[in-house]
């Protein structure tokens, strides 16, 4: 039996971003962007589920994010996660990777009892690949980044194949260990229809609060009780629940600051227009040959 904690992140779909979705301070206004489940985190979850399928154990998916990040926790449940945890607090806003890793490491200590921590190698919004290692350092845990395949798992030892610069290596690690996973490590399984039916109504505290706000006959405490007893409550932890140091959370705990943001000028440029005809291209080739670039 092996227990895994999987760190997942909801990310803005960065394929379509313009200056319009940026706030004045230079941070992105995520509310305006479509939010998706970071792909490599999904592969990380899949790897944890495969271990569970083979050896038994428990898979807990953890995310830090705004209330709507509960969307991806529901997806984790659809795929097969046993438990989920939303870490959410307005005071976490503006966190850089250091502040994020502080919060996550404290949450991990709270969940406890794990053999593996899995995470995607990096999230597509920042591509930094920093949160995994930064979290591991805070809990003094060995790590294997860029993991591609679990070669062998027995007793308290795991052998993992990972990418290195210009090749691969196989590492043998004593558990517990933090593993960051690249996309090719595992193809995420589709949602189970049965699980979608079971969990589509799973709600976080914020979800229930807004339900209660809209209806004077509903009480948050009663709703939490009801959803918990039906296994449909997505537990939420705040800064106070985790007894965190406010100076290390959110903007306050983030040493990196966005000093300046420049929109890339997309138009313009003084290029020579070449007609898409034989003559046009012929002329271009002549010029390149003349300049000794071709031929």
């Amino acid at each position, binding site marked *: 039996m092996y227990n895994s904690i999987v760190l997942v992140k909801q990310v803005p779909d960065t394929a379509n971003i313009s200056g319009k979705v940026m706030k004045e301070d230079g941070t992105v206004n995520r509310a305006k962007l479509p939010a998706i489940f970071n792909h490599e985190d999904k592969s990380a979850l899949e790897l944890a589920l495969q271990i569970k399928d083979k050896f038994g154990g428990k898979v807990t998916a953890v995310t830090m994010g705004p209330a709507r990040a509960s969307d991806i926790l529901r997806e984790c449940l659809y795929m097969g996660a046993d438990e989920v945890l939303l870490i959410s607090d307005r005071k976490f806003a503006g966190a850089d990777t250091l502040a994020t890793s502080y919060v996550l490491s404290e949450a991990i200590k709270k969940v406890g009892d794990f053999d593996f921590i899995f995470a995607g190698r990096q999230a597509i919004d920042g591509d930094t690949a920093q949160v995994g290692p930064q979290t591991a350092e805070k809990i003094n845990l060995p790590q294997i980044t860029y993991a591609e395949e679990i070669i062998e798992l027995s007793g308290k030892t795991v052998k993992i194949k990972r990418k290195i610069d210009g090749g691969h290596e*196989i590492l*043998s690690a004593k558990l517990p260990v933090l593993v960051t996973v690249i996309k090719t490590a595992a193809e995420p399984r589709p949602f189970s229809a049965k699980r979608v039916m079971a969990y589509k109504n799973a709600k976080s505290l914020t979800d229930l609060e807004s339900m209660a706000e809209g209806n004077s006959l509903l009480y948050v405490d009663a709703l939490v009780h009801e959803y918990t007893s039906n296994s449909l409550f997505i537990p939420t932890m705040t800064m106070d629940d985790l007894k965190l140091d406010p100076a290390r959370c959110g903007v306050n705990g983030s040493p990196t600051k966005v000093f300046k943001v420049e929109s890339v000028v997309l138009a313009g440029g003084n290029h020579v227009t070449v007609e898409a005809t034989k003559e046009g291209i012929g002329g271009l080739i002549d010029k390149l040959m003349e300049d000794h670039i071709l031929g």
Partner: protein
Amino acid sequence: MKIYSNEVFVFIEQRGGKPADVSFELLCKGRKLADSMNGKVKAIVIGSNVEDIAKETFKYGANEAIVIDHPALKDYLTMPYTSIMNKLVGEQSPRIVLFGATIIGRDLAPRVASNTKSGLTADCTDLQISDVTYLKENFKNILLQIRPAFGGNIIATIITPENPVQMATVREGVMEKIAVKNPAEVKITKVEYVPSEIDKLVEIVEQYREESKVNLKAAPIIVSGGYGLGNKENFKLIYDLAHILGGEVAGSRAAVDAGFIPSERQVGQTGVTVRPKLYIAVGISGAIQHRAGMQEANKIIAINTDPGAPIFGISHYGIVGDATQVIPMFIETYKNKLK
């Protein structure tokens, strides 16, 4: 005002006893950054029998090499390398620490930043020293860490104004590697390493390097395809054109993600940075991440159906048209010229 160090640390990466190019590139950059602070550059060399590498760092601008030499450090391992760097950075509190944005650098730098509570910016495309005013406060000698962000439509300048240590990773090929004119006298400081129990929790079972047959960096001509080609079948045209021109084939990240070409051929911020004589970009829109990897090319030809594609903004020649028509036409015309 707080008094900070004016030293720059550069982590010198070695794989199988060979120093990584990116480390020397960073030494050159570190030299410039240190000069503008009247400071020094220290090369941090970790490995087994790495004295020669340590000596070589002076060619590229080091004032001092700190060497940690131990048989257990022959190959990179997270825990021992981290504990060494944590100790050095923690004790000496350099103003700047630079790492290559390689797999090793990206494994190590975040741990050191986490341990020393330093700011860290990944994959910078430029680094500068400047005095800045941030939230009405003045800061001296701040490292401007410049990188594309959020899908590449934005260039962000990141600073860590209130931290004594500023850390950044930089991709290979982004900074230039040029030997300095007046290298400093070799000064090597050895630091002891004693393996601890936690350092032994992870071991290397085996390691194999797949010598890449692809050498984009050395190719004088590169034909590069993007997502705009639509499918793998059309992407063959890129190979055809590269073949006839005697060039190498490359692609954008979108082309790699779509499975048109293997990732070792990716040009851009998260791929290879190239400076060929000729770069032909076909069906590539020209996001800043891609540009970061090819804009230094001597001549750039863009072929795209969208006349508004940003790639035209940095091209020398632009052809608006469908690649499936333009490339065969290009190949045929070129063949005729060769006759």
